[in-house]
């Protein structure tokens, strides 16, 4: 399995002052990579750089060994898809119309969708388990259903790399697990490479094969959940007291929070 994406000494941000400062890592095909870190550590900025919404101020991002700023945007979007935190859609498009928009990178302007495009849209809907919502209007759906539609749209792009920015932060735990189980399935069955930003450290630990912990725009730690989610790392980055246990079913690290009231004096 070759390297799919390579981030090389990247600086980037919205203003002159870079949010990300010299970030480097590589990701191979088929990986399930989680990006974690406190608010403002540069997680979303990093995703925006990888999808070319932002351009790096310094450094390079290579996708399939090509500088992504030199790949045509439309061509890039046939291979990389993105799912945001939450999509507020003011216009009442039908679910089918939204999912078919995922075919835009594959179609010429004015070219109507063919049978093949409709089949791909149907397949995306069925792999996200929402085939029954096909004719519903997007503004009538619950947050969990809407997020599935947005994932289905991303899958209709037929990407080999899927990027997600906290896709479950507005959902209850039941829906969170459903979405992450779905991503895991796509990762294992269709060899879809996944890069996901997560706030919940335990979800990250449970689902990701590898974690990158960002702090103040730099990679603080890069490794397996076991390497990254130690109480020393978490306390250093998040400045809060935690205890790291083991999940009794998966043996993955499990982070337990400790409130200030309960923590021993010498800690604070």
């Amino acid at each position, binding site marked *: 399995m070759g390297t799919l994406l390579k981030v090389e000494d990247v600086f980037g941000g919205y203003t002159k002052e870079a949010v990300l400062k010299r970030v480097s890592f590589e990701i191979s095909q088929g990986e399930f990579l989680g990006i974690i870190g406190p608010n403002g550590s540069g997680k979303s900025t990093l995703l925006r750089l990888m999808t070319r919404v932002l351009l790096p101020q310094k450094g390079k991002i290579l996708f399939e060994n090509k500088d992504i700023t030199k790949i045509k945007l439309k061509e890039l979007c046939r291979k990389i898809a993105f799912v945001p935190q939450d999509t507020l859609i003011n216009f009442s498009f*039908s679910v089918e119309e939204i999912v078919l928009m995922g075919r835009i*990178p594959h179609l010429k302007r004015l070219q109507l969708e063919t049978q093949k495009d409709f089949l791909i849209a149907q397949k995306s809907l069925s792999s996200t388990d929402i085939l029954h919502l096909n004719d519903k209007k997007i503004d009538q759906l619950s947050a969990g259903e809407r997020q599935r539609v947005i994932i289905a749209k991303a899958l209709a792009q037929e990407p080999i790399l899927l990027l997600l920015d906290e896709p479950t932060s507005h959902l209850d735990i039941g829906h969170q697990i459903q979405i992450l189980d779905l991503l895991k399935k796509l990762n294992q069955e269709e060899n879809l490479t996944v890069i996901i930003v997560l706030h919940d450290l335990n979800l990250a630990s449970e689902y990701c094969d590898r974690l990158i912990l960002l702090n103040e725009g730099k990679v603080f730690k890069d490794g397996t959940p076991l390497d990254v989610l130690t109480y020393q790392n978490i306390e250093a980055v998040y400045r809060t007291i935690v205890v790291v246990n083991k999940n009794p079913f998966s043996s993955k690290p499990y982070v337990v929070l400790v409130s200030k009231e309960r923590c021993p004096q010498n800690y604070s």
Partner: protein
Amino acid sequence: MNQGRKILLLSIILLASVFLGISKGSINIPFLELFSKEYQPILYLRIARVLLGILVGAGLGVCGVVLQAILRNPLAEPYLLGTSSGAGLGAVCAIILGISGTSLPFVAFIGALLSIILVYVLAREGNKIPVQSLILSGVMVGIAFSGIIVFLVSISSNPAMHGMMWWLLGSLQIYELKILFMVAGIVILGIILIFIFAQDLNAISIGEEEAIHLGIEIEKIKKTLFLITSLITGALVSVSGVIGFVGLIVPHMVRLIVGPNHRILIPATCLSAASFLVLSDTLSRSLFPPLEIPIGVITALIGVPIFIILLKRKQKVK
């Protein structure tokens, strides 16, 4: 009802409006007698007016659709954004300077483009353009430009200019057939070009970043569409003056009927806005004959209540 039938129904409504527009007017003539030799000039005049009404309606309606999508603002349209007044000022300046004839639409286009850039810059706060401040800047620029038009017309030594106040409220009176043909060419071409971007407009109306993730070069497309809408608005204003609210009322009504998909929204808006303008013009000619009420007064009387409803609904969502 499926989308094809809805389009058919809207086409029938347009045909009926055209029939009404030709048969009614400041003088009552039985419909069949209109075709006699005696009334031929009147018939031609009415047909030309109806055609201009179709053109102005379709053009302004589609401009409204596009501006609402790319600015992600339900209140955007050429009049409320000050684009129409900018075009009007351009045209009036051109006439005073002695530029007229077929170059008039292009001078109006420059006026439209400059005013849309001005409004955009005024309304921008950092990287965002808040809904209310865009409309506020648009209305302010519109009022300022209308004021300048009134000023220029009143001080003009050219007595012909004194009849030019119709720029401010619009009229479908036809004064030069050559310009009409050219404007028709510009508007039809513009609408076709806009239709090519229908699927891009769908993606942009979900969100700008979403559109980028679908491979759409959003900045380029936005600029192109601003240019096309300014060109259409400029061309239309140079023949019909400033007619407000068409681009606001019609797209909203049509969205309720056919939904937000631009592939169908654009043609459906063309048909409905054309009917709307032909009917408004018929009213303007036949309500108080032989006087003509400016068509902009009629569209404003219908448009303002709808504007208020939309604004209230927007506030509730917030």
